[in-house]
């Protein structure tokens, strides 16, 4: 449904040339939900703007529903909906008016456009805001208006640039529920960007990670985590000698990718911690190493990113941080 091939886009600001997107290729199948992840300035929005006909690519090509973004922008626009990173409702316009106008832009008749406007407002739970001006709404309410604007004409392919930014957990859950329902009922294809790794992890079928304008990973969350991060397993022993012995034993086990020791704690990285943990404990028992604590942690997408780039994707203290307990990093 979406195919990007070698997309590239440079900007010139004064004498400086900014390579916003260097080389981005990926595909999204019909009905699929793909999340585009990456740090600020990675080129996510620029990629989206190329795919939605807003920016001509410097090089490369893209097709949406079989139409060439550069050569057939009109046909592409007919089938897509786009929710940009910035607010889309005009300051002087009532919400309902804006939604009806949006429908008219896609050729809906006035009556139909009004009906759809009310429908999507209800769908997003902001029906009671219909008569208000955007300036009187909260940030999260405005965001939902933006999303409503992208849905009013019933697109086949939906582009969402940070749709959940600024939404409270309840609204986020609500938004996801709507999106999943649209996918089930209408087979909507969705490409979205987000900085909330947990929602990408849970909701997206596939994840593409971009960094500095390049795709650095592409796959399902599970595959990325297994291939590029691995489970983590922690064992704390009664003394440092025990830890040293435990580390030595771990290095001899099959399937362990990495062993680290910190004080009395040994950390292992492996593919299938569920199976490794009992075997490892048995081994330690036979070697008379006293284990006081043991646990395992599933990798997060942040771990994937750290493994790929050596940097973190999420800021420490980010509200979206994975809620799984965080043992001391070895």
């Amino acid at each position: 449904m979406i195919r990007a091939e070698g997309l590239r886009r440079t900007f010139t600001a004064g004498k400086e040339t900014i390579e916003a997107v260097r080389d981005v290729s990926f595909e999204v199948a019909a009905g699929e939900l793909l999340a585009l992840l990456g740090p600020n300035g990675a080129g996510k929005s620029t990629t989206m703007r190329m795919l939605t006909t807003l920016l001509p690519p410097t090089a490369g090509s893209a097709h949406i529903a079989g139409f060439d973004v550069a050569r057939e922008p009109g046909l592409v626009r007919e089938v897509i909906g786009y929710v940009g990173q910035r607010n889309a409702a005009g300051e002087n316009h009532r919400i309902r008016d804006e939604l009806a106008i949006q429908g008219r832009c896609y050729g809906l008749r006035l009556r139909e456009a009004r009906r759809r406007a009310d429908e999507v407002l209800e769908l997003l739970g902001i029906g009671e805001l219909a008569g208000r001006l955007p300036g009187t709404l909260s940030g999260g309410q405005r965001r939902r208006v933006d999303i409503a604007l992208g849905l009013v004409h019933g697109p086949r392919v939906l582009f969402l640039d940070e749709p959940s930014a600024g939404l409270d957990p309840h609204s986020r859950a609500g938004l996801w529920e709507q999106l999943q329902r649209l996918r089930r009922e209408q087979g909507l294809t969705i490409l979205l960007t987000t900085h909330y790794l947990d929602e990408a992890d849970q909701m997206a079928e596939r994840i593409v990670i971009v960094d500095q304008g390049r795709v650095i990973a592409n796959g399902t969350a599970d595959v990325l985590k297994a291939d590029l991060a691995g489970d983590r397993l922690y064992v704390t022993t009664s003394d440092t000698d025990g830890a040293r012995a435990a580390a030595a034993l771990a290095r001899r086990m099959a399937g362990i990718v990495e062993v680290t020791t910190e004080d009395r704690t040994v950390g292992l990285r492996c593919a299938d911690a569920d199976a490794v943990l009992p075997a490892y404990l048995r081994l330690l028992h036979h070697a008379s190493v006293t284990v006081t604590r043991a646990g395992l942690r599933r990798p997060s997408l942040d771990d994937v990113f750290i493994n790929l780039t050596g940097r973190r994707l999420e800021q420490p203290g980010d509200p979206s941080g994975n809620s799984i307990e965080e043992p001391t990093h070895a």
Partner: protein
Amino acid sequence: MPKLLQDTATVFCREITPELRSPVGMVFAMGQPVLFLVLFGSMLVGTDADLGTGTGTADVWQWFVPGILVMMCLMGPLGAGHTMLSELNGGQVERFLVTPISRTSLILGRTGKDTVTLFAQAILITAIAVPLGMRFHLPGALATMVLLVVMAVGLSALSYVLAIISRPSGNLFWIVTQVLIFPVMLLSGILLPVDAGPGWLSAVATTNPVTYIVDAARALFVGDFLDPAVFHGLVAATAIAVLGLILATRAMRRGV
């Protein structure tokens, strides 16, 4: 073509709806021209100035009001350009560019709304001037409106071009509107006749297209349809309109 018309109507509707919902805003936007009309106009009448139009209070008003109408057409589109600038920097224009709506209609619809607004304001100004003592010539006033509408289309389109090319800071927009607008106004003889100044000033004024429009508006306003100034003014207004529309639609098509 029907699609272009329909899209233009859509954009026009979007832009005019807030004005219709609160028409007070339109009246407030007229504040400056009304002040000039009532305060400056009354003083001008009081001075008994010879404005090269013969004599009499009624004549002074008939000389002054068309100038104020042109002034309004110069200032009105600036507000529209400012709105455009903020919608360019917000996500609103982008939102329209992603839809299949015709790019040209994004300019035509907005320009249409600006022109209708100015037309309504021009009627109000004229209505205010009548009780102040202005003699009113209906066919002349209508003809003046037509001329002003043509110019308003051009100026509104030009203010959109300016908004588009001065993104994202908007500096250029402010510089042009702050620095350019008053000289253009003074040098077109809106407030006082240019002839009253030294020769060099009149020479500069002849390079100002607005001068011709002001002269034409004055001739039309008293019903002097055959005055050659009318022709010159129409040419100037049409040139502004064509130039503005070409530049604006081209800028919009290139994408923002």
